[in-house]
């Protein structure tokens, strides 16, 4: 930790920094959640905030997700801009209503009279033997709910930029961290991309690989092989969905592989795949493929778990196969 000054910030530092910036620039921004205050967060994401901004702006809650997430929605309707934490994405099981039935719907139901500028901060990520109830990537569920924006930062820069953008956004935004990325380090890019724009993370020729969140690393590793040449698109947000960038890339490569850590069946990859297969029907040189986790709850065993998650090796293999199919 002593060398932090010289070293590039970690993903987790970038989140922390964005939280501090958001709170400093707008005093209606408050952070709400279990142990986010004096405890500095179960993963230490909120460290320093309580000390700096005090208990009125960094608000500890009891274990009452339905209640405090609902209260955060009510606060967002009445002049605050809460960043409310759902400690594990799996806990949507106990607080879906305020997200799905309240925040996502009230602006529409009131024809815009109410606005709900809120960020639902949560984290996900299998690969740590956290068991089936603490390993789910549920972004597809939320992207399916009209009225929610869904962002999934995959890089240190996006961890920072997308969080700030989410806080400044007038709409409810679900911001999903991946805890396997917390320790990754990189310098922040200077020119932030806006929320809603995808990024070409690696330029390539043969196969477009669309991904988001922690799978980006696996995809980039797969791309390092060089053959086939992969163009990796980091989607950054599922809603809004930047199909232009995706389509432009697939127009060039003629092939698409969508990769995500979430369960493949009825996952968000299906939407991308279906759209591309439709819109580029005549341009595709090979079928659009997807690679996600198989339809099983995530097992505790590290070996079993590892075998289920899309790896760089598997990504490269599917991509290679795609080039042979056309």
């Amino acid at each position, binding site marked *: 930790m002593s060398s932090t000054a010289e070293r590039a910030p970690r993903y987790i530092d970038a989140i922390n920094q964005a939280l501090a910036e958001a709170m400093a620039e707008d005093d209606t921004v408050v952070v709400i959640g279990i142990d986010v205050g004096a405890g500095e967060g179960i993963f230490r994401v909120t460290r320093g905030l309580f000390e700096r901004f005090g208990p009125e702006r960094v608000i500890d809650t009891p274990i*009452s997700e339905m209640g405090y997430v609902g209260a955060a*929605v*009510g606060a967002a309707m*009445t002049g605050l801009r809460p960043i409310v934490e759902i400690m594990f994405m799996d806990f949507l099981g106990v607080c879906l209503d305020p997200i799905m*039935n309240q925040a996502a719907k*009230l602006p529409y139901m009131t024809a815009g009279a109410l606005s709900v500028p809120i960020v639902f901060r949560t984290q996900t990520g299998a690969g740590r033997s956290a068991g089936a109830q603490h390993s789910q990537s549920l972004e597809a569920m939320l992207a399916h709910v009209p009225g929610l924006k869904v962002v999934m930062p995959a890089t240190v820069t996006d961890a920072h930029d997308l969080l700030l953008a989410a806080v400044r956004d007038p709409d409810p935004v679900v911001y999903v961290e991946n805890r396997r990325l917390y320790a990754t380090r990189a310098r922040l890019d200077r020119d932030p991309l806006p929320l809603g724009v995808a990024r070409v993370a690696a330029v390539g020729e043969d196969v477009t690989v669309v991904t988001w969140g922690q799978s980006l690393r696996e995809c980039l590793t797969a791309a390092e092989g060089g053959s086939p040449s992969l163009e990796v698109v980091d989607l950054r947000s599922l809603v809004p969905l930047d199909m232009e960038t995706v389509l432009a890339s697939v127009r060039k490569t003629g092939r698409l592989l969508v990769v995500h850590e979430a369960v493949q069946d009825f996952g968000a990859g299906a939407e991308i795949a279906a759209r591309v297969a439709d819109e580029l029907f005549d341009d595709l040189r090979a079928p659009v493929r997807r690679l996600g986790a198989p339809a099983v709850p995530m097992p505790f065993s590290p070996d079993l778990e590892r075998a289920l998650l899309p790896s760089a090796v598997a990504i490269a293999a599917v991509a290679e196969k795609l080039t042979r199919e056309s």
Partner: protein
Amino acid sequence: MSHPDPSGAPVVDPAASAPLESLFASMALIRAFETRVAELYRDGEIPGFVHTSLGQEAVAAGVGLALRPDDYLATTHRGHGHCLAKGVDVDGMMAELFAKATGLCRGKGGSMHVADPRLGVLGANAIVGASMPLAVGAGLSSKLRRQDRVAVAFFGEGAVNQGMFHEAMNLAAIWDAPVVFVCENNVYAEFTDSRTMSRVPRVADRAAAYGIAASTVDGNDVEAVHAAAQEAVERCRVARGPFLLEAETYRSHGHYEGDAQPYKPAEESDAWGALDPLSIAEGRLLERGAGSAQRLAAVRSRARERVEAAVERARAAPPPAPEEAYEHVFHG
């Protein structure tokens, strides 16, 4: 029955109570509105689901008149009366029920989602229990922004068994949020006598589990409701923390319009029928010489006329333009 209030003596000057005339007029408006809505729904002029608050007007009026225009209010599927008592425009409400472009929500919300943020009305809500966390958030917002706005959550006694009641009450308590929880105990939750769904018949008795002060009031006595509401609201106003007010009343219509109510014992409805909140207020006004039978009848008929005018305007109003279906999903 009043729970011991840890924070001390009454904060309201009884003379400040709204005069019974105003409370009566508010109830008359609600009665007229709901009666007409029930007919319009039966006749197929209003679509969707409609849950009227007939018989419960005293709760809405009593609480509504204890609030400032900038106080917050979150309510339920049975929320017409609460909105009207808070001052929401009758035309805008009626047009909303007719799904017209002149409706408060331009026809996108309907009976279960009427809202008017200009008057702090954060909306009716079709999820049982959801009004409570929303109101806690509004109260928190008021407190943190150093305002003295109070947030009121209306809910039925059926909602008390929802986890959201538990979590919201506790949050309001530990955050000392200016929230008045108003439980309208109208005996039934849909077709179920709520007394069979808890071993603790009195909702106010549950407040002790959160260290929240509470009281039960005769929900058909509009003056009693108003006095209790004012007391609770003023406590919040001066930062003495949340309060649970239980108003005992009776749902005189079905759960929804069209419900034949085979589950209600006749003696029960008869007994409550004799306790009509408008008649009680009328009796008192006459007794006190505060108005003649004629003048009171005029109040009622002015209310009906006001509602009828709203109906005519709603009928005449245009529906939302088709493209509006795609608007307002996002602000940005």
